[in-house]
């Protein structure tokens, strides 16, 4: 029970000194080596005490960052590869679509030329102009003869 625990010489902080002995000889490991080892494994020591750099302080040792993990293949190359593939696919698609459209336009115009070259007797003509070309050419609307409802007197 808590009332059975008596405290004396209470300090504001839990603090202690420590030395590390070498198991092979009976000497202590020099302070500089201990400091270097603590710097390298700071995170392990913190987690052993369930504390952090802010709550566990080693005098004269400032806390440093743990070495970052570096992946084997840079992630950015993978993302870049994906992006580039999409772009190239888009360009190829648009160019092929453009070439196809160009070919279709050429085919239509050559067909029209062939029709004009062949015997015009086989082609229905009006005033010497084949009917197909009349449909294709942009005609001019003759304003005088356009069907204009206002010109006809209403019954």
């Amino acid at each position: 029970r808590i009332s059975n625990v008596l405290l004396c010489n209470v300090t504001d902080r839990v603090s202690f000194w420590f030395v590390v002995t070498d198991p092979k000889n009976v000497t202590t490991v020099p302070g500089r080596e201990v400091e270097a080892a603590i710097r390298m494994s700071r995170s392990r020591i913190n987690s052993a005490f369930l504390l952090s750099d802010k709550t566990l302080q080693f005098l004269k040792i400032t806390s440093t960052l743990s070495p970052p993990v570096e992946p084997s293949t840079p992630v950015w190359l993978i993302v870049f590869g994906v992006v580039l593939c999409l772009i190239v696919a888009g360009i190829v698609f648009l160019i092929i679509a453009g070439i196809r459209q160009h070919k279709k336009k050429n085919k239509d115009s050559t067909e029209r030329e062939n029709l004009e070259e062949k015997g015009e007797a086989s082609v229905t003509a009006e005033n010497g102009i084949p009917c197909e070309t009349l449909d294709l050419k942009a005609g001019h609307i003759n304003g005088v003869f356009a069907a204009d409802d206002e010109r006809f007197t209403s019954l």
Partner: protein
Amino acid sequence: LSVPPETPKEDGRPKWDNKFQYILSCIGFAVGLGNVWRFPYLCQIHGGGAFLIPYFIALLFEGIPLLHLELALGQCLRKGSIGAWNTISPYLGGIGVGSWMVSLLISLYYNTILTWVMWYFINSFQEPLPWSVCPLNENRTGLNEECYESTSVNYFWYRKTLNITPDVTESGTLQWWLILCLAACWAIVYLCTIRGIETTGKAIYVTAIFPYLVLTIFLIHGLTLPGATDGLVYLFTPNLNTLKNPRVWLDAATQIFFSLSLAFGGLIAFSSYNPPKNDCEKDAVTVAVVNSVTSLYASIPVFSVLGFKATTGYWDCLDRNIINIINEFDLPEETIMRQNYTAWLSFLNSSYPEKIAGLKLKSCDLQEFLDQSVSGTGLAFIIFTQSIILMPGSQAWAILFFIMLFSLGLSSMFGMIEGVFTPLLELRIISKSIPKELLSGIICLMCFLIALCFTLGSGSYWIDIFDSYSGSLALLVIAFFEVIGVAYVYKVKRFSKDVKWMTGRKPNLYWQITWRFISPLLLLIVLVSFVTLQIQKAPSYAAWNPKYEGFPMKEEKVYPAWVLAICVLLAVLPCVFIPLVALFHLIKRMCRSKDPSFVPPEVFSCQEANS
């Protein structure tokens, strides 16, 4: 009896699918990276809300009239910038060539900025973000020294991205990762502009609308961050005393001018694909207002995030001091909190001044953190990336932010490439048999090859040079001659008649006065003040030099003579075409006037060209 309208001439000119596409393209061209990283900075250093006064005055008397002028010009003449100015008067043809040259120079370096954005974007898919941790040095005993002395964010930007050299004369090597990203960026630009406005018209739906979505998301998130209100209050608190400084008015005028992307020739190209009977007056006002509102809208999330960053920095400073004090005085945890820090500090300072002095505490001041104002690439790649690390879910925020920057820049690139592309299509030098896809491919390939010099170690210094010299003076000069050319060579009366034919109503008194007097005068004042300010101080630059004593502060260096010569060349080259072409035509006319069979060309009119 109604006479049916004449069928329009089938001139085979491409046209917009609908009006919305055209407006969106103009807005996308105008709204660019400057709306996000230059306008909030100007607001901050020029007295917060008070800056809006010169900004709106400049918009009213300089921005909107010039915008209306360019849109009406392109719509009436239905040609790109070179053809349009040749039609108005052959002596003014140099204006079109100057616009074309400026668009080319600027699109070269603008796409390199997009390259940096893309590099950060593809690096945002890692956990943890690569700019949040410092790498180890060679023997793995500690952190990399350059990174340790500055910050990990600075290190990633200056070393891992740019691999910057300490001096502009040291070119360094080509950075292969930047070359890859540059190739990808030009490939994207080619993909979108491959058939001119047929393809950009489709792409603009995404690139122009997406940034607004992301800005809204950042707005909502930014306002929930701690310290956001401090940042916003700091930004918008008006300080009317700054209006006495003429520098503020000059900055407002130049900001409006560059923000609306005037004098690039891109707006003329866009409106030349319109049907002739289109209300260009309403379009101009719409585009200008949307551009300014976007600037204001973007400054809110930017300053919320900056306020958050300042507050976090302030709290970190306080926490570090608190830990030092607690360790020194052996106090229990949580006796000193942020709220009672100042009270405790004054108490301890009066009781144990030597101990406190021995701790060498840094003074923490929130105002100081807020005062660290940056604009341009520093804002996006250093300050904002630092703030993103502090937010939970940083990868998502980083990805969103960089896609937004990329779309903003890409839609501006469309306008500039169109300003280069359309006049070339109309020149009789390029034979009709070259398909559009090949021409745009050639333009993109050549720009990519020239822009490779920006991927050198000294590339970012060169981009600063291009930004300051090719993108500023020439545009002001070209715009001044545009207004003078239309107002006094073509005559405002004739222009008003053309605009009336297109929109159905005569331009009212506001347009008459601004076109005739106010805009040319304002532009002349801005031009002269700009040149005087540039000449006053010797051009210098700030170099990132790890071996400098004051590192991580940047080292102030002066440009050597040959670099200065290039600066002057960049500024003067587009402007020099204006007098050259006029002189060329003058000489041609003097030779021709001796020829008796020469018939002077007819006077041009907008209506006759379109009937």
